[in-house]
Each structure stands twice: as structure tokens, then as C-alpha cells.
């Protein structure tokens, strides 16, 4: 026999206006196990809560039902209340007689009947409530940052500054990412490298930061606070400890390769650093192109290296380390515009993308900052920019707005005007979206001061005519076709998810959207968390972002990670799934259904017929379980049960509302 107390709230007239609260309390007093029932004007008020606490003492209550507003509103309040009253906070149930009753059913008689039913339901459930405890897990005070672009660097610096060790794993030989490729940043037009490279150096020199470049995350095991992560350090062929980064090797290397960093517009060597300010500023050998690896001959770099750092026999190395938190900051790729026949299917050399333009305009780029078009290195006089290439296009591209293109195109037009005097820029656009501080002003300047001509309309065709590119489109404001003979066409290609984002998501156990961007736990309220506890997101891997937004999100992700690492222990959900091992047959159908990888196999030993046998059962990791209960339905035998929402509790509710 339980001793349940029922407390019916008037909520002023919010409830009492359309529900006969006294009658509800009277009826509740007759329910099985209910030993006390009363009503009060404002149950959530200080005196209201005192009524509950007093009744717990006076009537030795061991369960409490509060009939008031939605539990989504005041469940925490009343849980605290009964806890101070001496009960486990989970021995509370609420009957929502306001949002679900008094506010929607004006007929007092009918409303009262429903309110009684809802209280009966809560009372039937609470009888089966058991005291629950949150459990806690230890936190490893170290963070892993995947990706060393501006977002990853910022995350690492913030976490490191808070006093926690951080490892940056970067796929490329150097950190820096996309921002290192960019020439100037909008809207201030300060030099990208000038603001990025100091941060790269800060990261390299920070005592709490370890940079592992030319490496990838191979395997992730464990869970929040306790991730066991295997990092694959790709064979660099250069001993990082011996190399001084003197550069002799790459000066002497005979093999020239199209530079990825320069968007294939310039050359690098087979042993190389992507750019002069690389961090770490030590080279790797590109085995695909290196003569030594291709033909077995050459080996010049090995011969010229003063420290004997070149090692052709080096192999991939796997290192495993435990981390408490993971921040994913893997950035973006650029949309491949070769699907667009109207822009020439990527066949015209002078139809380039935004990132190409960045390299062409960059002082340390392949043209030393002199804008020359790729085909014949002529300085373009007339340039057409086409926006929304691959973005906002359901047919051939992505549905989303890529967010940065309006601004970087305005920046490009400005740079054109500055670098090539007398040049003319035309910009075809669908809309101009400039929602950022100083952005609209920048755009206005581009249009006014710098004379860029904005044409609202889509381009239907770009075709070569002589050494010109004819851009044919529509000016939809004038309602007229337009043809421009341009020297160069720059496509504002969309930012898209990294091509391998899906693989990384599966490794990490996080989800991703239809466009392969990683999904945040909540689009508004948990923008930097993922559904996997302990894994956070920063930068463009979560969706198109410009530098300020990436840095802001990086700070937010760092704050979340620091919040986690700052605790030595973390509280977990109390309403988690529980396995009845005696019933569990170990079929593990539940395992594949769990979105949090919280269910794993466990071997138990039992005495059967006088001997000990081992068998497998499912085991729920309470730290990972978020209490969704999907597993409980997958379990035919009912061996899994969700604490707080057990089969018995829900069946009791069903029976109670059907009475």
C-alpha cells in the first residue's frame, strides 16, 4: 500500500475557472492508495509548496501527484519541492489539468470529469514510480579537435586557454584550412593571412595544444567523457623530430605538381609544405607523385637533407588516446560546378570559382597577386560574377542558401576594381543577402564607390567567342536579355559538406542532414551540440558559415566542451533504460535501434543445472542512454524497461484513463 497525496492547483482562475477543483480533490481522495487530497490557489507558490511539504510529513506520504499546469512547465519545481520535503524527486507525477483541460474545455462539467480522469491517471502511475538516482561518470580532461581551420584553431585556443590539453587532428600537412587560401576578408578587407597566421602560431606554441597534422581520426570508441580515439598519422616520409623546415628539399625536388592549395593554378613540389607559413612548417612527401615512390629512382631530397629527416620507409602510425570531449570542425568543400552545362560544364578555363579568384588575387598566390586569367594570363578587363552557383537550386545543386557568396562576391568585385584600374565587374544575382555587421554597407560601397554593376537575373549561357566569354542572361528588373562579353567569369560556388563527411559522422556516431552537413542537437537551442553527448560542432561542417560566424560558433563549442571538462564527474539521466538480465535472451535487436550506441553486449555467468554457463545479454550504458525508450519496444520479451516510463507505469495509465 502506497501513501499518495494529491494536490490540485487552482492556478488562480486559470484552472478553477472551468474545473471544479474541490470536486477533483474529493474524487481523488477515493482513488486507491490516495490517503490525502487537497486543493490550493497556487500550488507552485512558496506557500503552495509548503502545503505539499507539510502534508508529506503529516500524512507520511510516499508519493505525490500535483494536478496543475504542464509538467513541461513545473515538473522541476515540484520535484525540488518534494525532494526538500524528504522524498525522492522521481516519486512525483503531474496531472496537466490546465493546458490540457481547463484552457481548452470551457464546459465546466465535462472539464471536471476529464480533470478527474487525468488525476486518476497520474495517481495510478505514481503508485508504480520508484525512486530514481542520477548516476555520474568520470570525465577525461582532454579535448580532441578534428580539423585545423579557423574554427578548429579557435576552439583549440579557447579550450587550451581554459587549462585543458587539446589535440588538433588535421588532414592536411598544415593547419590553416580554407581561411589560409583566402586573400582578404570582408567587410574590413584586412588580409586573411595577417589575422590567421598569428593564431596558427599561437596554437603551435600553446603548451596545452598538440597539433597532429597529416592525420585522420580512424576509430572512436567509448562515450562522453571517455572517448577512446585512434588517430591515424599518415606516413609523412619526413621525420618531424629531425626536420628543421629549412626548405632545401623542396627547393631541390625535381617534380612539379599542381598545387591543391593554389586551386591547381600554381605548382608545388612532390615534397612540399602547402604554403610558406605552414604550421607545422615541415614538409610531407606526396607519394603519388614522388619519383622515388613511382620509379624507385631520385631520392634527391634524402641526399640534400642536412638532418637526415627524409624517411621513405615511414608507415602510417596509429595512436590511441583518451579524450573527454570532441569538437568537429572539418569545414567545407566547394560545389563542383561541372554539372552546369550553361556555364560550360567546367570546360572553359576562364570560368573559375571564388576560391580560384582568391588565389589569383592573393599576393602570395601563383600570380603574385596580379589578377591574370588562367587561359592566357591576360589581365581581365571585364569580369562577370555569377552568384548562387550550386546553391538555391533544387534541380542541379543544393536547396540551401550558401550564405557567404553574396559577401565574397562583393569583395571580389571590390578587389577587381582596386587591382585592375578601369576594369568592369558585372554581378548576376538572385537576391543580395547581407545580414551581418557592416555587410550591407560593404555591398553598397561595392556598388557605388567601386562601380560593380549588379544585374538581377540568372545566366542562361556562357560561351566562348574568340578570346572572350559571352555571358548571356536576363536582367529581370528591366525584363530584357543581357549579353556581356567578358574576359573572365567567376562563379560564386556554394559551400558544401566535405565529401567524406558521412564517413566521419558514422565514425563519430553523429547524424548528418540530406546535404551531409552534421546535424546539431537542436536547431535553435543546442546549435553546437550533437545528439551524441560530448561531441560538439564548430564552423562550416555544420552548415555554410563565414569567418565571424565560424569563430563565434567555435567559441560556443569551446565553451560547451570546457563546461564538460571543467567537471570531474558528470551527471547522467535518471530515466534510462534498464535490462532485466534474467529475461534478456541477448538477441541485441535493441542495439541497432539505439540512436546513442548506449546498448552493448555483456557476458554474464549463471548457474544452470548445477554448472556455470556464460551467456550474452544486452547492457545499457547509463551515461549514454538519453531515455527515449525505443529499445523497450524492440524488446519482445519486455526485458528492457525505461525507468520513469516503465511498461507497468504506462499500462497503469492506460487502465486508469479507461476507467
Amino acid at each position, binding site marked *: 500500500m502506497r501513501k499518495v497525496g494529491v494536490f490540485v492547483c487552482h492556478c488562480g482562475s486559470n484552472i478553477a475557472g472551468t474545473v471544479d477543483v474541490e470536486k477533483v480533490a474529493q474524487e481523488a481522495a477515493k482513488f486507491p492508495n490516495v490517503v490525502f487530497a487537497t486543493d490550493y490557489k497556487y500550488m507552485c507558490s512558496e506557500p503552495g509548496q509548503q502545503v505539499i511539504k507539510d502534508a508529506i510529513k503529516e500524512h507520511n506520504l510516499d508519493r505525490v501527484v500535483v494536478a496543475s499546469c504542464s509538467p513541461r512547465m513545473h515538473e522541476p519545481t515540484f520535484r525540488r519541492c518534494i525532494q526538500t520535503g524528504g522524498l525522492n524527486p522521481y516519486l512525483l507525477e503531474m496531472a496537466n489539468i490546465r493546458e490540457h483541460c481547463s484552457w481548452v474545455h470551457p464546459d465546466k462539467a465535462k472539464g471536471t470529469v476529464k480533470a478527474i480522469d487525468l488525476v486518476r491517471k497520474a495517481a495510478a502511475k505514481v503508485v508504480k514510480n520508484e525512486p530514481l538516482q542520477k548516476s555520474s561518470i568520470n570525465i577525461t580532461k582532454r579535448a580532441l579537435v578534428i580539423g585545423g581551420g579557423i574554427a578548429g584553431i579557435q576552439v583549440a585556443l579557447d579550450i587550451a586557454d581554459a587549462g585543458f590539453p587539446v589535440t588538433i587532428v588535421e588532414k592536411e600537412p598544415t593547419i590553416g584550412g580554407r581561411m589560409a587560401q583566402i586573400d582578404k576578408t570582408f567587410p574590413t578587407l584586412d588580409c586573411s593571412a595577417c589575422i590567421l597566421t598569428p593564431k596558427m602560431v599561437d596554437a603551435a606554441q600553446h603548451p596545452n595544444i598538440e597539433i597532429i597534422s597529416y592525420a585522420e581520426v580512424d576509430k572512436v570508441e567509448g562515450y562522453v567523457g571517455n572517448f577512446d580515439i585512434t588517430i591515424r598519422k599518415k606516413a609523412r616520409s619526413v621525420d618531424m623530430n629531425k626536420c628543421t623546415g629549412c626548405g632545401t628539399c623542396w627547393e631541390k625536388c625535381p617534380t612539379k605538381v599542381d598545387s591543391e592549395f593554389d586551386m591547381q593554378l600554381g605548382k608545388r613540389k612532390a615534397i612540399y609544405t602547402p604554403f610558406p607559413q605552414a604550421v607545422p612548417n615541415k614538409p610531407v612527401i606526396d607519394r603519388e607523385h614522388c619519383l622515388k615512390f613511382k620509379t624507385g629512382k631520385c631520392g634527391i631530397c634524402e641526399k640534400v637533407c642536412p638532418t637526415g629527416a627524409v624517411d621513405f620507409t615511414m608507415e602510417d602510425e596509429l595512436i590511441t588516446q583518451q579524450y573527454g570531449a570532441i569538437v568537429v570542425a572539418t569545414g567545407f568543400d566547394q560545389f563542383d560546378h561541372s554539372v552546369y552545362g*550553361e556555364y560550360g560544364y567546367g570546360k572553359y578555363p576562364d570560368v573559375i570559382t571564388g576560391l580560384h579568384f582568391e588565389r589569383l588575387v592573393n599576393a602570395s598566390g601563383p600570380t603574385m597577386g596580379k589578377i591574370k586569367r588562367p587561359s592566357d594570363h591576360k589581365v581581365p578587363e571585364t569580369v562577370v560574377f555569377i552568384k548562387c552557383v550550386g546553391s538555391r537550386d533544387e534541380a542541379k545543386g543544393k536547396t540551401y542558401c550558401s550564405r557567404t557568396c553574396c559577401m565574397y562576391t562583393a569583395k571580389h568585385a571590390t578587389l577587381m576594381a582596386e587591382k585592375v584600374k578601369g576594369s568592369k565587374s558585372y554581378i548576376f544575382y538572385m537576391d543580395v543577402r547581407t545580414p551581418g555587421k557592416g555587410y550591407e554597407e560593404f555591398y553598397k560601397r561595392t556598388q557605388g564607390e567601386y562601380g560593380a554593376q549588379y544585374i538581377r537575373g540568372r545566366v542562361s549561357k556562357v560561351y*566562348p567567342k574568340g578570346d572572350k566569354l559571352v555571358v548571356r542572361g536576363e536582367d529581370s528588373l528591366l525584363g530584357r536579355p543581357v549579353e556581356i562579353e567578358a574576359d573572365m567569369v567567376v562563379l560564386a560556388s556554394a559551400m558544401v559538406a566535405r565529401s567524406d563527411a558521412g564517413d566521419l559522422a558514422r565514425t563519430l556516431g553523429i547524424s548528418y542532414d540530406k546535404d551531409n552537413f552534421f546535424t546539431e542537437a537542436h536547431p535553435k537551442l543546442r546549435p553546437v551540440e550533437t545528439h551524441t553527448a560530448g561531441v560538439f560542432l564548430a564552423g562550416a561542417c555544420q552548415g555554410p558559415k563565414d569567418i565571424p560566424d565560424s569563430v563565434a560558433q567555435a567559441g560556443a563549442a569551446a565553451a560547451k566542451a570546457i563546461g564538460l571538462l571543467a567537471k570531474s564527474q558528470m551527471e547522467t539521466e535518471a530515466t534510462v533504460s534498464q535490462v532485466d538480465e534474467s529475461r534478456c535472451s541477448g538477441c541485441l535487436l535493441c542495439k541497432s535501434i539505439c540512436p546513442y550506441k548506449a546498448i552493448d553486449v555483456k557476458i554474464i555467468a549463471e548457474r544452470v543445472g548445477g554448472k556455470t554457463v556464460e551467456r550474452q545479454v544486452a547492457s545499457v550504458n547509463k551515461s549514454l542512454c538519453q531515455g527515449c525508450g525505443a529499445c523497450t519496444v524492440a524488446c519482445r520479451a519486455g526485458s528492457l524497461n525505461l525507468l520513469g516510463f516503465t511498461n507497468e507505469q504506462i499500462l497503469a495509465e492506460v487502465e486508469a484513463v479507461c476507467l
Partner: protein
Amino acid sequence: MKYAYYPGCSLHSTGIEYNMSTLAVAKKLNVELEEIPDWNCCGASAGHTTNHLLGLALPARNLAIAEKQGLDVMAPCASCYNRMKTAEVAVKSSPEIRAKVAEITEMDYAGNSGVKSALEVFLKEVGLEKIKASLVRNLGGMKVAAYYGCLLVRPNGIGMDDPEDPMTMDDMITALGGEAVQWPFKTECCGASLPTARSKVGLKMVNDILQMADISGVDAIVTACPLCFVNLDMRQNDLNKKAGGNFNIPIFYFTELLAIALGEKPGKVGVKKHFVSTAQVLDKYNLK
């Protein structure tokens, strides 16, 4: 291989060369063509601009007859092809349209018989491999620009080739031993009826195409549409007279070149009927 043949109005009149050469090619390639009995207008031009349903019912009737014959239709004219394809897709995707069309035509067209252009039948179904094996002579490196116009390849996903950069005819030119000149105006609009109705606008469009072909250094242009053909062929004189042009670019139906390469005498496929003389270019490449 057998098809129901739909010549449409052009191939019996202004595009008679297209008809002659198509029949010649079919014969050479053993494609049996049986003209649709009692065929009617395909619904292009006036039909579909007047009434949407009429624009579907007209071609559907032709298709329904072919369906009774148990054959797919070959329609060489790009307009005919486009209208019939539209009707085919519409009827297949909507039972309501099928019912309405059946009510109007008093023939139920179920969408079982489809339509193919002559390009598809000869170059895809018969195939370039077989054509290459049957060649009697080759184009000897003739520089030919393939001109597709607008109707064959649109809309995207329904037309027979890539709407931005179709290659079907280019591949044929290469297979016949010509040089398929890559130029940007493969699918440019020929002006359709505008050279007649608003000649200032229309003639400029023809002019642009011819000019681009000229710049590209072509010997000839090859097409698969009677209307494109007429505009490109007939208007050159006009342009030379009225706009001071100096065009002399022979225009061919792709079937003409194909028939010639397969050994047909040029005279038999109507090349002497063109406005712009084809004699020089055929001479130059030993195709007489």
C-alpha cells in the same frame, strides 16, 4: 527493326529532302518504316498554343493509331517529335489526361507506343557501330557544326540528349569521318517563325548562328529539324541582301550526309533542292 513513320507536314512539303534522305537511310540500314495510316497534324505551332488539350489530343491520336499497329513511332521533324513526346509523357503520367484525350479522339492511347526521333532511331537504336560498318565513303574531314535547335533536347530529362551540350549528331559526324566542330550555338534558337513574323528580330537570331558558325570555320551545318533548316538555309540570301552579310554555308539534314556516306547518290536525297548550294562542299570532299 520496324517503326510507324510519321512524316508530318514538313516532310511532305518544305522538308521534302528530309523525307527523301530519311527513307534512303532507313532503307540502307534495314529499318522498316510504315507510314501511320490517316495521320493528322502533330499539334505544333498553332495547335498547342491555342488549346493545351488540343495540343495533346492531336499527337495522341497519331500515337493511338501506331499503338494499334503495335509499333513505336519515328518522327524525324523536331516539332512533331516534341509534341508527340509531350503527349506520351502526359498520358503516361496522368490517367485523367488519358481519359480526356480518349474522349476527344475516340481512341484510347495507353502510352504503350512511344515516339523516337530519327536521330535516336538511326544513331542510337541502329547505332554508330553498325553505321560505321556499313559506310561506303566518308566525309573526308569535312568540318561540320551540329545544330540541334531547341526542341530535340528539351525539356531536361525528357528530350533525347543533354540540353546544354548535346553530342548525338557530333558523334555521328565523327563516325562518318568528318570533323565535328565544337561551337557554342548547338542549341541556340533559330528564331522559328520570327524571321517571317518579326523579321528584324528573327533574322538577327539566324544571323548570330550563322556568324558563330562562320567564326568557327565550318564547311557546313547539319541539323535535324525542318524549321531550323529552312531558317538557316533560306535566310542566308535574305541576310546577304538586307544586312550586308556574306554567308554561304551549306545546311544539311543529318540524314542527307548519312545517306551519302552510306552510298546513296546525293541527288537522290535532295541536296540539290537547297537554297544554299551544296555542290562545292560535296565536291571538295569527294562526295558527289
